[in-house]
């Protein structure tokens, strides 16, 4: 999910010169995510905002791929031995021997 808009919601300068910055980023499905950090005086808050938006878009893509892998692993975990046998029997009659051996090794 890409980030479609980002803005600085609030800034609050502290006595030591640092600034509390709150950002809001909006995903393309409308979900919002908020970040608060205590920024240094030298920080370019708009640049931080932009870089975070790019990182969030990238991160959600990685999370999506990770979730797909986790789901795949879970689906294998849920298969019982009998299921494997059914799959093997079904595949055995239609595929070259090498692929059946691969299924055996997965099991």
């Amino acid at each position: 999910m890409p980030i479609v808009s980002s803005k600085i919601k609030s800034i609050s300068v502290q006595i030591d010169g640092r600034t509390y910055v709150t950002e809001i980023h909006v995903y393309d499905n409308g979900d919002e995510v908020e970040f608060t950090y205590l920024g240094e005086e030298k920080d370019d808050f708009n640049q931080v905002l932009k870089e975070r938006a790019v990182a969030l878009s990238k991160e959600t893509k990685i999370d999506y791929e990770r979730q797909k892998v986790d789901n795949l692993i879970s689906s294998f975990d849920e298969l019982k031995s009998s299921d494997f046998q059914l799959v093997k029997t079904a595949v055995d009659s239609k595929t070259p021997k090498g692929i059946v051996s691969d299924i055996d090794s997965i099991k």
Partner: protein
Amino acid sequence: MAVKYCRSGAAGAGTGADWTNAYTTLVLAIAGSSAGDTIYVADDHAETQASAMTITSPGTAGALLRIICVNTHTVEPPTAVGTTATVTTTGSFNMSFTSGYAYVYGITFNVTTGASSFATVIASGTANNWIFDTCTFKNLSTSSASMKIGVAGFTAYERCEFINCSVGFNSTSSRIAVSGIFLWRGGSIINSGQIPTTLFIVDQTIPGIAEISDVDMSLLGSGKNLITASVATPTLYYLRNCKLGASVSVITGTIGGQGGVSVFLDNCDSGNTNYRMEHYKYQGKILQETTIVRTSGASDGTTPISHKFTSLTTGPTLFSPLDGPWFAIWNDSTGSKTVTVQFMHDSVTNLTNADIYLEVEYLGTASLPLGVLTSSRVADIFAAAVDCTAGGATWTTTGLTNPNSQKLTLTFTAQIKGLIRARVCLIKTNYTVYVDPLLVVT
């Protein structure tokens, strides 16, 4: 309570009886040990395994297995601890510390150079308590390999403790996934190739408590986050007296409900302060504030401090407010007491006791330490709200358009001496209030 020896370079009988006949791997040494035994690991122990490593301790809750790196591979018995032993898994192979109870000292664990979903897995078996002292974990996978703590289930007695331990990763997507009880006291995040974008996440299904104190996390700076908050699993994070990176964001993601993640960060900073606090809950956040403060209010002796409460639009309700930290003050006499807390907000319209209230816990039972909880909140949903009293206090109000000073008071009868605890609770949604955390008791 036997003593065993472990040294990768030993070429003897492998009985573990002495350095010459030492076990050559940690797994073999543990397999040959019993509850309460001590395994001495040689200073030059450098074990490498190109397959998954599963370490199960025979130790019990009352008799931990002790695995100690020592400063020798010749002296028997050794007389001093060491920190130079290494245990390594190469390829896509995890290192798992599963069931059992153990104390481990001074070993560097290099885990998984290949792709693996979880590199280091600790406290993953039923009934365990793994204590690592002065150890280093380098999760070296360039994939999103993480350190996963506590994964067996709700009834597993899962506990993992790091004492002066260092943890490093080699992927920005890696993180420490916490469930069960995780205590980390002293140590640091080190650079083992990459710094994670976000350091902690909750395991998806099992609640956890993570207490992290005295840890240097300063490598996570601008653009990094400490905790993923958008997970449905109840987990409490306590971070105290830690060194942070400049401009790090404490949480990422939205807390989905009152039973989700809560974060309590106290006295952690990248700079020379001793007052920074950031608390995050479903209802909102509470941060320390050093500009909008009350004159003669709370201070660390140099810097005046207030607490900035910011509630979310869909956050607090009358019965589930944004509750602030408890303040405690010693009460040295019995009888009628009045507690007062000042606050500031930006509106000409007064806040009422249906918007904000004070909660006080006092010792109101004669001859017993049985506390009594009292509140200035509107009594129930049918009662009429009443304006909070005008504060009459002087505040620095930089940036406020309509500064409005009000106060919260509660009067009660203390029956015995002891601590009075109080906290402010904000009900009003999507609102900001500055609270002076200086309790005044009269």
